[in-house]
């Protein structure tokens, strides 16, 4: 079993979270959408597995490289 950290590539805020802890995810699924520079930035799953932890909620500010959630596979 391995844990994959999903990090933000950008500075911005969380607009929408599309999944909940325990959901099965496939590579490329959109887990949440961030807002940065007035643009919607989808956060895609980098691996197959289960969404094991959500570290942010809508309207939270996020930094570059901040871990947003984890996937257990």
């Amino acid at each position, binding site marked *: 079993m391995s844990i994959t950290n999903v990090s933000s*590539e950008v500075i911005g805020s969380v607009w929408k979270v599309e999944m909940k802890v325990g959901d099965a995810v496939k590579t490329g699924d959109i887990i949440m959408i961030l807002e*940065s520079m*007035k*643009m919607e930035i989808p956060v895609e799953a980098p691996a197959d597995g289960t969404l094991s932890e959500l570290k942010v909620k809508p309207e939270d500010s996020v930094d570059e490289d901040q871990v947003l959630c984890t996937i257990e596979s």
Partner: protein
Amino acid sequence: MHNRELNSEKAKADDEETAGTPINEELHFRRVSALEMGGAEAIERQHANGRLTVRERFSKLTDADSFREVGTLGGSGEYDENNKLVRVTPAPYVAGMARVNGRPVAIGGEDFTVRGGTTFGAARRKGGQGGFIEDLAHYYKIPLVNLIDGAGGTVTSAKRRGYVAFPGVHGFERSVQLLGEVPVVSAVLGTAAGGPAGRAILSHFSVMVRGTSQIFAAGPPVVKRSLGRDIDKEELGGAAVAVDKAGTIHNAVDTEEEAFDQIRRFLSYMPQNVWEMPPVVPCDDPVDRCETALRDIVPEKRTQPYSMHDLIDLVVDKGSVFEIQPTNGKSVITSLARLDGRPVGIVANNPKFYSGAMDAASAHKQIRFMELCDTFHIPLVFLVDVPGFMVGLKAEQEATLREGMRAVYVAGQLTVPTLTLVIRKCYGMAGMATCNKNDIDLKLSWPSGEWGSLPVEGGVAAAFRRDIANSADPKAREKELEAELRAYASPFRTAEAFAVEEIIDPSETRPILCEYIALAEGRLKANLGPKRKAGVSP
């Protein structure tokens, strides 16, 4: 004469085959010694570290049987009490001429199997700072290929010499000069520090291998002594730092073979020198290929990104895109490509990353790429979707304004033809870095184009603050003002004023760009030669 057996029977056979009479025995022995490099054990260690030897690298990178060595016999001879040669340790640097894509290049590289590729005390340097190979590229006006696998000088040189050399005595003057004359490419294929690391940077294109190569100003032992910090070499100067984070090296690949592919690919777009035109290749992708998919590529909702990479692929010759620095400064995409077989430089904002806003890293990347294309007479195509400079504390700390204005300054000095095609947003000073608006160079736009000094949202709140605050319903007033101003923002109104030259149907993008790039040929030919540099860059 020799106290050991020659273990390269093939080399001997080759030598004998080429001569009518038996080859001079000493010449043969010295040649074989050169081919043996640092010996079987050292070669095994090099392979065990996941690296090729310098000679294997040359043969994989260059056209078959095209390498003509220079300085084969350079090295250190050992002689017995009767002054007879006992053995030769070859120089830790191999150099010569070869062909890449059928065209001549000067090529050199450290031999790590001989004393770790450190410098050796020859009458003349084979390569590196002020070496033969740099001179060869300079006098014959051919590209230079550096395969870097060494850490430069050692303190033992001082012992040999009896004094320490002053920095710059074996300087970078020639390497600097070459940057304005011929294409220079570098592959970092081992751990590079010192002079070799410096040379990797003094190139037009550089590539390194993830996992087996590192580059830094100084390695872990120096960091430990200077700062007391323990850090391993991969953490300090692996591709994750040197390529992805810092942009010290342009591209990272997974194998040495891929690095050679990238070098061949890069050189295929380049002229042999600045006095020549870049090579045109036959193109079987129709010039009049209209892609209706381009009409729908930009989402109606202005806050939704799209794939600028897909857009580029739909426009340029199929399979012709070679992206430079794909993992650094990601809000802009810089790619060499072809339109009807003619090399072009594509600068395209990436809406998926900071909405395409220009930050310090993307400004650096765009500047270097514009200078590369300008130097080698490659016309530029800007595919514009830029909301402005990146904003925020981090951006200000990184001097985004200064770096962004440097991009504007460099764009303002371009002499190659530039075509600007606005895909969506073109705002502010970052927008100015995408065109040469005072020249004959064209500004084209898709119907989705919008521009101005700043976007209407945000701009309204700032400019009409009092008006909005004093109204009975401030939110509604703000929306009303936005709607009023947005009407003026239509690209068609600017086209009415002939302030953009043409608004085009997105599907016609390829035929129109191909036509203008073909037209650029005469202008490019009229401006061959080195480019004049003027002024102080901000």
